[in-house]
């Protein structure tokens, strides 16, 4: 076996990224840019959305909630997808960055999930006359929230970091399969109340450009925010992991 745990292959340029040193170095360099991108997209997008959009006929001024609801709902789902990929990287390649990035992303995903749930509920009250309905999209989203909770609870419950990484990765994979399955189950079980795919290019459903343009800006912004947060938090996790190793060593030296 070579000194590094990973053997080398054609994809090495990609895996280099997952080397903790490289990762720290690269993200250290990239972080100011990502934060900058977040600032120049998210803030103008939100300001534009809040101050400079007209009232819609059906929604009135409540349409402005779209700028917080839709980006966070989208990122909540995408964050889980990112965690799935990162977990697979850990299981297959044993790169710590994979597992730790997944761990770092989970709380971000949960916060976005909570925001989407709360803003959706607040929006639902005037629009549908109810805070909550057992609509397929809402319901499957709630199940996703439960998966996030379980995933984080499992991380918190296990002491040994590598064991925790392994088990949570297994859970992320099995959970993803069931999350998709739930989506179909819920669809079958009930017809929807929730908005359709209004961002699609399908002419009928498409929202007017006045709403669409700032929304795109906030969507880009929220992606940048997610990347920035995951970078920061993964760096923290890597440091903690390293700290854990050092403390173990220290303990061994004492004993």
């Amino acid at each position, binding site marked *: 076996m070579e000194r590094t745990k990973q053997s080398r292959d054609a994809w090495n340029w990609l895996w280099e990224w997952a080397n903790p040193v490289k990762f720290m170095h690269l993200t250290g360099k990239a972080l100011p840019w990502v934060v900058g991108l977040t600032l120049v997209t998210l803030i103008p997008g939100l300001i534009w959305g809040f101050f400079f959009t007209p009232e819609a006929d059906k929604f009135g001024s409540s349409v402005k909630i779209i700028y917080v609801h839709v980006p966070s709902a989208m990122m909540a789902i995408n964050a889980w997808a990112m965690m799935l990929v990162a977990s697979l990287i850990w299981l297959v390649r044993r790169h710590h960055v994979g597992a730790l990035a997944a761990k770092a992303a989970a709380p971000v995903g949960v916060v976005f999930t909570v925001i989407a749930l709360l803003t959706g509920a607040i929006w639902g009250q005037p629009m549908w006359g109810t805070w*909550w309905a057992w609509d397929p999209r809402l319901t499957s989203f709630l199940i996703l929230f*439960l998966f996030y909770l379980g995933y984080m609870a499992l991380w918190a419950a296990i002491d040994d970091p590598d064991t925790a990484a392994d088990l949570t990765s297994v859970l992320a994979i099995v959970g993803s399969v069931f999350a998709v399955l739930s989506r179909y189950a819920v669809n079958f*079980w009930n017809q929807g109340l929730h908005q359709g795919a209004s961002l699609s290019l399908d002419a009928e459903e498409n929202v007017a450009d006045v709403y669409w343009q700032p929304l795109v800006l906030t969507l880009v912004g929220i992606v940048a925010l997610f990347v920035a947060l995951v970078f920061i938090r993964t760096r923290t996790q890597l440091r903690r992991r390293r700290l854990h190793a050092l403390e173990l060593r220290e303990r061994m030296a004492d004993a």
Partner: protein
Amino acid sequence: MIALLVRDLRLAVRAGGGFGLGLAFFLIVTVLVPFAVGPEGETLARIAPGILWVGALLACLLSLDRIFQLDFEDGSLDLLATAPLPMEGAVVVKALAHWLTTGLPLTLAAPVFGILMNMQAPGHWWIFVTLLIGTPALSMIGAFGAALTVGLKRGGLLLSLLVLPLYVPTLIFGAEAATRGGAGMAVTTPILMLAGITAGVVAFLPFAAAAAIRINIR
């Protein structure tokens, strides 16, 4: 005594989030029922207070075996029994720790979860009040049941079986008060009964529970 309370709370928090898990289970039960019953808002609203009470009760129930079982298994219960603490005091402290980590969070969360069940305005308030009055009884009765089953290998289900009938009066008055309150009817009688049960249970069951433990460890 305080040392025991502090230790139990600390153990609950360390064991991967003692607070969170009871809550999460409660949330899940309130979520599962609509899945099973179907999503019609009206049916849901009708059964909401009852289901919330059942959910809180089950969440309580699942965490009961924590109260004494772990201490029994690792031998600390034997050591506590030989320590200068009255066993009755230990029982009360442990029931209190259980309530703080389970009953209280459940009470605080129930109004929010009511929304998922399509509950209407004054209902939230009443589910909160009834749970606040009723959950201490659940913890204390649970501690008694846990004391009875502490010697048994994996007494979990047996514990449920023993405790659930004892929970019935609390459940009936609690759910009744919550339902009436939500519908704007008079609630004094069931609330008084509920408070009476809690007071009686907290006054007398510690002695029974302590006796059960002494018998179980000998």
